[in-house]
């Protein structure tokens, strides 16, 4: 007989605001067997998280839930708060995306893990402490006895997520809901966490609902997959079936969306666009009454490279490795030492007027398209802002240029008077590209331009960037943590770790014969070898 831990039948969720009802989940059905893993896959806003939150009624007050959720043969919809409390954190546990914010910064690890032990199992004192140590051992935190009194800020991102998992496991849950648990982690740590979850699933005989947009992980861990789009489950089946014979067009697109292959070289003249010599970004650490400089945080330590017109340099590394500091230093947005030559001129010596001219030629596109556009300005104002600074045009000309550039990046002319919130992430990133491109720059720095976007949109944006590069022979510096993506766009690659260049080589050589263990690990963790 099939033992279902969870069955969801005809589940619909809608939100009510100001007399309008906004339905976010339509008529969903799925079952989860004991000891198996179900993945919910879909882009942001497709209803994945809402579905998981509704299981334990953690939705905002204005949500209207219809349908049935049966957990361990018990209907969960309509239960009162007391009964839900017994299930939440006890039989059903959660792991959230952001380990930084899901742990309370003011409590020690012991206290946070112990809290639910006291609440659900009535454990106190020594017994509780032993249990906490046992749990920390289980999630493979080194030296758990010494970690008990640590506060969250003393742990790394991966360790925090391990602590979160320990908290989730505390009461031997039947169901673990993991909502994008590795999205904010680096690839090498991501792999460790996934391995840990798989092992725990086996030893504890848990069921897992795994919410993610990363298909590589899905393939690795799940037994069944539900593909979601716009609040509907459009396809479900065993992992093998979905990956081998995707039925819907959307799933096929998702599967295709991971970047492959290498970049074709663009042959252009050999003008040197950018040359860095021993660039350093050091932030001083000041202490004491006189604020004397006691030391430096070396965000970037001695990086040198040369870039020709039409080339792409990929900078790859985990978070905190100093990638973004390099970009900001090149644009003179933060202070740095060493020399930066832009078209054979040292920009350090630039006076105010040269500086303005330099700003026109070097542009940046940021990671988060939601954060990089002023929410209170129209698209016309956002794109036109650079023009107003550098090339005064009359109203008609200005408007035409803005329309042209919008079409160029794949948007429509009639969007000029709209506000950023009306656009999707991919469209916003196109607007950001338009804003940079309207000044006809020679150098474009792309700081993780696709990592905040959904997979299917990622590829479109990368394609757009590639075609623009070909058309205007632009020079790119492409910053990313995604090895597959970096491989597909760059001519040469710099691998960075803790502000230091680990390796620097032409793309093909770097991937065929990585010169350092770190690079090899990165390539391996990304599943490219």
């Amino acid at each position, binding site marked *: 007989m099939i033992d279902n831990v969870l069955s969801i039948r005809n589940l619909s969720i809608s939100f009510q605001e100001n007399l309008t009802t906004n339905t976010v989940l339509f008529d969903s059905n799925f079952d989860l067997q004991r000891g198996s893993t179900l993945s919910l896959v879909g882009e942001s806003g497709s209803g994945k998280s809402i579905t998981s939150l509704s299981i334990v009624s953690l939705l905002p007050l204005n949500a209207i839930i219809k349908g049935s959720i049966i957990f361990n043969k018990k209907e969960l919809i309509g239960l009162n708060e007391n009964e839900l409390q017994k299930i939440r954190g006890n039989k059903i546990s959660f792991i959230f995306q952001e380990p930084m914010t899901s742990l309370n910064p003011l409590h020690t690890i012991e206290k946070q893990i112990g809290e639910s032990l006291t609440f659900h199992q009535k454990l106190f004192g020594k017994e509780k402490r032993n249990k906490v140590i046992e749990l920390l051992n289980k999630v493979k935190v080194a030296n758990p006895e010494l970690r008990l009194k640590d506060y969250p800020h003393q742990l790394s991102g991966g360790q925090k997520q391990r602590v979160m998992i320990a908290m989730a496991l505390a009461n031997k849950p039947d169901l673990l809901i993991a909502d994008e648990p590795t999205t904010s982690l680096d690839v090498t740590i991501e792999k460790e966490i996934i391995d840990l979850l798989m092992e725990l699933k086996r030893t504890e005989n848990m069921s897992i609902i795994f919410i993610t947009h990363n298909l590589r992980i899905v393939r690795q861990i799940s037994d069944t997959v539900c593909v979601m789009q716009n609040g509907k489950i459009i396809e479900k089946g065993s992992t093998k079936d979905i990956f081998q014979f995707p039925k819907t067009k959307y799933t096929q697109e998702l599967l295709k969306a991971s970047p492959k292959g290498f970049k074709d070289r663009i042959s252009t003249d050999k003008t040197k666009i950018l040359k860095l010599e021993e660039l350093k970004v050091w932030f001083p650490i000041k202490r004491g009454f006189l604020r004397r400089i006691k030391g430096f945080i070396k965000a970037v330590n001695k990086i040198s490279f040369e870039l020709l017109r039409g080339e792409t340099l990929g900078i790859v590394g985990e978070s905190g490795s100093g990638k973004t500091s390099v970009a900001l230093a090149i644009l003179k*947005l933060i202070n740095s030492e060493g020399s930066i030559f832009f078209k054979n001129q040292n920009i350090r010596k630039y006076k105010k007027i040269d500086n303005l001219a330099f700003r026109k030629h070097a*542009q940046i596109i*940021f990671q988060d398209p939601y*954060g*990089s*556009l002023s929410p209170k*300005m129209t698209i016309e104002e956002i794109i036109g802002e*650079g023009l107003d600074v550098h090339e005064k045009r009359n109203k008609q000309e200005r408007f035409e240029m803005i329309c042209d550039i919008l079409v160029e990046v794949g948007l429509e002319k009639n969007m000029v008077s709209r506000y950023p919130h009306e656009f999707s992430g991919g469209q916003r990133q196109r607007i950001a590209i338009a*804003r940079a491109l309207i000044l006809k720059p020679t150098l474009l720095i792309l700081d993780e331009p696709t990592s905040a976007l959904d997979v299917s949109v990622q590829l479109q944006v990368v394609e757009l960037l590639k075609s623009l590069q070909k058309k205007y022979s632009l020079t790119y510096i492409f910053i990313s943590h995604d090895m597959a993506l970096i491989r597909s766009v760059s001519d040469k690659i710099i691998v960075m770790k803790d502000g230091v260049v680990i390796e620097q080589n032409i793309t093909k050589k770097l991937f065929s014969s990585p010169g350092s263990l770190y690079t090899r690990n990165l390539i391996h963790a990304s599943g490219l070898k």
Partner: protein
Amino acid sequence: MFHSYLSKRRIQNFKSNKRAFWSLIIFCFLFFISIFSEFLANERPLIIKYKDSFYFPVFSFYSETTFGGDFKTEAIYKDIEVQCLIISGGKEECWDFPEKIIKETNNITQSSDKGWIIWAPIPYSYNTINDLDGAAPSSPDYQHWLGTDDTSRDVLARIVYGFRLSVFFAILVTLISSVIGITAGAIQGYFGGWIDLSFQRLIEVWGATPSLYIIIIVAAIWQMNFWLLVFLMSLFSWTALVGVVRAEFLRARNFEYVRAARALGVSNYKIMSRHILPNAMVATLTMLPFIVTGAIGSLAALDFIGYGLPASYPSLGELTLQAKNNLQAPWLGFSAFFTFAIMLSLLVFIFEGIRDAFDPRKIFK
């Protein structure tokens, strides 16, 4: 700015808060009326018809000789003789039997010489000293609806003018201190570093200065007036906003769209005003109610202890002081209490509604 989705949502949210919405309407109505206090409470008539021509004493000066009197000074419209002159068209007999002449003239229905007077609904100004039968303060009656104070001035007229003065004072102080506070906070937060550090120390010293003593000292040197008091109050209330605005700017200067604007070469001033300021407005708006009600309260308190505006101003604080000194005349106390209670409650309700409307987590049904 009002077209964006967010603003629409906020206006919608504000409207759905019935108490705040009606408070706003009532307050706007009261304030609008009080702007025209001169037409509402005035010892001079609004319009006079005298010998075929019209006169508007509210706006201009007319001497008694205009109406056939003897004095070159301004006509005292309250005097029965002057009224008689106007109505009868300047008859000499008015000096002896004014009541009789008025009666006679009124009995004649058809006469081109017949004049008339239209009074304001409250025919006293805030500084009109009335002739009373008894001793001042006199209790409410049909002539003086809220009674008179201890210098026999009409309380209702003083409240009408006092309300206007308080609100104007509060608005001016709020405007001036917002402009200074936002500018100072913006500069500190945006540039940070040494500018921020030294400004912060300056503000600490400034904030620790006892403003009351400064006002007392200044009042001892110069004759206090409305504008001087606005200046002094603004001088000490702008620091309230600096903190929040500075915090917003410190936060927002690292936003990606601000970085993007800097990468485009946009000037600091434009980045501050166009990109960051709209973010800081929400925080500023939540601080404003404290400044507005604080300004009204301080004005009243200063008037109460006698260091505020001179006695010639229609001050609500002074009314409160009179109430304290004349406990036998409870209408003074009640009038002052209800005026403050209604004015401040309305303001608090309005600002509460505004703050809630800006709160993204608040759900309105």
